[in-house]
C-alpha cells in the first residue's frame, strides 16, 4: 500500500526519520519561476517505487545539467503550502573560487527561507550562486552569504539583489551545468 505524497500533510508535529523520508528531485523548468516540485513521501515499509533518497546536504547542480534545489521537510516550509508562488526576488553572489561560493551558498540557505537555484562557473575562477524567494528573505540571505564568504579565500567579488526581475530574465536563471571552466 503506497502512501500518497501530500505536501499538505497534517503530521507537522511528527518527526520523520531520514531513512523513511525520500525526496523527488526534479530539474527546474526554465519557463517558470524558480519553484521546485519536490514531493516528499513517507514510507512506513521502507519501499519506494520511483524515488531517490537524497542526503541531507543540498545539491548545487545535477549531472544532467539542470539546477535543482531540495526543500526542507514540510513542517519547516509551511509558507509554501498555501502559496504556489514562493517568491520572485533574486539574489546573486559572485566569488572568486569555489570554496567561498559554497560557504556563501550554505550561509544563504541557512539564513532565510530561500531556494538555491543555480551555481554557475563563469570562467576565470569566478563562481556565481543564485537564490530566489521572498524579497525580505533574499535580502537577508544575500547579506548573510556575503558576510560568510568575505572571510574565505579571495572572498566576495560582488553581490546583487533584484526585488522584481523581469519575466524575460527567467530563462537565464538556471545553471548551465558547466563543471569546469578554464
Amino acid at each position, binding site marked *: 500500500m503506497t502512501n500518497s505524497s501530500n505536501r499538505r500533510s497534517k503530521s507537522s508535529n511528527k518527526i520523520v526519520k531520514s531513512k523513511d523520508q525520500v525526496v523527488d528531485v526534479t530539474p527546474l523548468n526554465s519557463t517558470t519561476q524558480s519553484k521546485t516540485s519536490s514531493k516528499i513521501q513517507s514510507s512506513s515499509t521502507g519501499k519506494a517505487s520511483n524515488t531517490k533518497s537524497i542526503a541531507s546536504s543540498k545539491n548545487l547542480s545535477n549531472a544532467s545539467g539542470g539546477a535543482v534545489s531540495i526543500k526542507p521537510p514540510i513542517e519547516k516550509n509551511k509558507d509554501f503550502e498555501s502559496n504556489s508562488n514562493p517568491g520572485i*526576488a533574486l539574489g546573486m553572489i559572485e566569488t572568486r573560487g569555489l570554496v567561498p561560493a559554497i560557504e556563501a551558498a550554505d550561509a544563504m540557505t541557512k539564513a532565510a527561507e530561500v531556494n538555491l537555484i543555480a551555481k554557475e562557473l563563469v570562467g576565470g575562477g569566478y563562481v556565481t550562486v543564485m537564490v530566489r524567494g521572498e*524579497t*525580505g528573505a533574499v*535580502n*537577508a540571505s*544575500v*547579506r548573510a552569504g*556575503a*558576510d560568510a564568504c*568575505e572571510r574565505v579565500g579571495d*572572498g*566576495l*567579488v*560582488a*553581490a*546583487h*539583489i*533584484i*526585488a*522584481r526581475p523581469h519575466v524575460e530574465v527567467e530563462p537565464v536563471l538556471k545553471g548551465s551545468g558547466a563543471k569546469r571552466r578554464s
Partner: protein
Amino acid sequence: MEGWRQKNRPECLEKRFEFESYEKTRDFLDSLGDFSESVNRFPDISFGKTYANITIRPLENNEKEEISKVDHEFASRIDLLIKK
C-alpha cells in the same frame, strides 16, 4: 536627497554609497534591511566590500511606472541611515 540620480527607461533612482571597510558596508546594509522590512519596500541592491549601489524603482501599484514623491521620500530616508 543628495547624490541620487534619476534615470529613464526604466525610471529609477540610483545612488552609490562608499565605505571605508566591509564592516561599515555591512552595517549600512543591515540598517537598510531593517528599514526595508519596517516599510515593506525593498530596493535593488548591488554591493561589494566597500560600496553599495541602491536602485529605487517605482512601486508596483504605480501605473505610470514613474518616479514619484513617495520614491524621493524613500530615498531621503535611506540617506538618513548613513547619518545615524
